[in-house]
């Protein structure tokens, strides 16, 4: 571990020289063990909208016809045909050549993750949780914003440096079957990271594979089986073993249990918790199951349409939530206790699409507290404690500045 730490120090020095570093983190807050800081992360996708090509084409075709009738220079004609054919917007039957609209999957999120904590990121489908997860470990390039890992801006690293950093940042996917190469055995899958990074080879690698299998609760004789021969829970164990292979510091758990059956789910959760304790891991736990997040996470971020609505410690979010969306979300969760049938807050309408959303608060279309200002201005941050913040125009209390809570 010492060699990798020195690598990070080297990167740190390099970025400091260039003035890229988030100095605040390194100097002030490393003492508090901030392992990952996400600042104003945005990820937009370009999506196609129909593009009118008719006039463009008519102009070109007309030019060609003029050439043809006048028979001036054949070469010009032939050249322009080739240009026309290849340069014209391709018009396959149903996908017109796109003009671009932005799908704002992640629209500026800021999260601080402290070492050894489990930080939850919850939200409904289409709120950009998974995009956020992939952008954080740089599987997608962010449109804007930065991710600082131990103070290093990972989006500015070269591919070689990034490869080295990837040893510390890993991900576990939602669908345990899709995330395993169906043509590779468990052994092949877990040895892959050793192979890529040249950490270990031959017998040593195999030995480490078997140790990892044991760590995640699989038996040695599972090593030469293919993913389809495992049950859902065992597949997810394999996925976790692969993520653990390089001894990372930080793992993004992208809904690791939502595709599993109830009885298996608990076992995987226990494994995740056990590994965290044993290896001192830090998790970003992404989920839509609030009751799970409640018992699992130290801190929770509630996301809606690419924005953070409310963030705080688990207790703060679940016991003293402020944001109307959080309130509705939590009250909508069915509670597995028939004696506690709660009175629910029903949100009207559906989740709108994140394509070019209206200005102001993203939640305005469904919010029970909506007022005129919500349709114009972005909601301000209101801090209730040093860790608890909600973004809303119409809620009571709160401070503009979090620093008033720091000692």
């Amino acid at each position, binding site marked *: 571990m010492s060699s990798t730490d020195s690598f990070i120090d080297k990167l740190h020095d390099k970025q400091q020289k260039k003035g890229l570093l988030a100095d605040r983190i390194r100097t002030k807050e490393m003492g508090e063990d901030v392992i990952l800081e996400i600042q104003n992360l945005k990820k937009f996708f370009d999506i196609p909208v*129909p593009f*009118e*090509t*008719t006039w463009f*084409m*008519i102009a*070109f*075709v007309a030019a*060609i*016809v003029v*050439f*043809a*009738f006048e*028979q001036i220079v*054949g*070469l010009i*004609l*032939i050249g322009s*045909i*080739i240009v*026309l*054919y290849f340069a*014209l917007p391709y*018009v396959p*039957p*149903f996908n017109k050549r796109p003009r671009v609209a932005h799908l704002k999957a992640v629209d500026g999120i800021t999260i601080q993750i402290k070492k050894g904590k489990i930080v939850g990121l919850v939200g409904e489908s289409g709120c950009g949780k998974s995009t956020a997860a992939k952008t954080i470990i740089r599987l997608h390039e962010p449109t804007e914003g930065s991710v600082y890992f131990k103070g290093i801006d990972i989006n500015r690293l070269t591919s070689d440096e990034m490869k080295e950093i990837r040893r510390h940042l890993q991900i576990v996917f939602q669908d345990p079957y899709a995330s395993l190469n169906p043509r590779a055995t468990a052994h092949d899958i877990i040895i892959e990271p050793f192979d890529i990074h040249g950490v270990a080879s031959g017998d040593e690698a195999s030995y480490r594979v078997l140790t990892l299998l044991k760590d995640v609760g699989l038996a040695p004789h599972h090593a030469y089986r293919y993913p389809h021969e495992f049950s859902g829970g065992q597949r997810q164990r394999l996925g976790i073993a692969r993520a653990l292979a390089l001894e990372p510091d930080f793992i993004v758990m992208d809904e690791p249990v939502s595709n599993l059956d109830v009885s298996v789910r608990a076992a995987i959760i226990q494994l995740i918790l056990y590994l965290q304790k044993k290896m001192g891991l830090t998790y970003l736990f992404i989920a839509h199951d609030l009751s799970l997040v409640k018992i699992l996470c130290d801190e929770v971020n509630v996301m809606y349409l690419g924005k953070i609505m409310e963030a705080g410690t688990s207790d703060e979010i679940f016991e003293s939530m402020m944001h109307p969306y959080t309130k509705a979300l939590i009250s909508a969760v069915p509670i597995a206790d028939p004696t506690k049938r709660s009175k629910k807050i029903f949100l009207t309408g559906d989740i709108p699409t994140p394509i070019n959303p209206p200005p102001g608060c993203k939640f305005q279309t469904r919010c029970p507290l909506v007022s005129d200002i919500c349709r114009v201005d972005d909601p301000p941050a209101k801090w209730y404690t040093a860790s608890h913040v909600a973004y809303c125009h119409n809620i009571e209390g709160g401070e503009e500045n979090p620093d008033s809570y720091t000692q």
Partner: protein
Amino acid sequence: MSLKGFIIRRTIYIVPVMLGITLMNFTLINVSPGDPVIVRLGLIHCDHDDCYNAAYNGEAIEMGLLDRDYYTIPWFKRYVSFVNDLLHFDLGKSWYYTQAGEGIPIAKIISDRAIYTVVLNVLAFFFSLLLATAIGVVSATRQNSFWDRSLTIAMLLGYSMPLFWLAKLLMLLSFQLFNFTGVANKDAFKTPLFLNPNFYKYLILPTLALTLGGLVFMARLVRSQLLEILRQDYITTAKAKGLDNRAVIYKHAFRNGLLPIVTIIGNSLPGLLAGSVMIESVFGWPGLGTVFLEGALFRDYPMMMATNTIFPLLFLVARLLTDITYVFIDPRIRY
């Protein structure tokens, strides 16, 4: 965007594609080795060069090559005039089909012969689609029954049978049963065409052969598509509503199954057209296919160029029609 706009756009888009195709063909013809005049000359016996040159020139003049300065103008300039002629619906004169020592205009040949190909193809397409639907529905709704198994095997056998050989076998069968080979000779089709009993008599076997050829292809398609769709959730919904099997299949399954079927048939039209070329040739049916094959055998370049322009054009138009059909079948598609 309106449907009209879409149609206009797609129609205009045909232009560069056609230009690309004709350019490709024209280039191929002009870079290929061999002199078409020599092919036409065949084996002539000449004692000295003058005799040969005279014969060569005579042949070249007859083919109309000297008129157009075939040997002096670079090929890309000739391509420009080809496109120019094409825009005036002038496809040049045939080298092989001649009348009174002069080539017949290809546009005339094609307009004379097109009706044969159209009648044959439309009839066969209609029949095969009808039969394929029937067979596909029977097979798909009674999966793994006796009928399904035997029909599937029959379709597979037919699918593996080369189409031209199927035509030959039909010919043999008809000869054994009725002493009628179905091969038309040139005198069989004197005008007026649609009152001519010979036209119908000689139409039977080609239509039958082409129908079988299309049928085996489409029936397999219909069956697999229907099987796929009968697995869908909305079929269960329809059943849970209390609809009977007929309504489920003919209303709910069929309309959904049509979409992929239309796509695949639309995309396989060139294949069906090639089948028609084979069948026409085997039965001597005087359509475009025969014209093309005979022209190709005798290196009739203008004719080959013309057919190789017409067939892609037909295909592109057919694909445009396919796309338009989509709009009426599937409400999800908007232009």
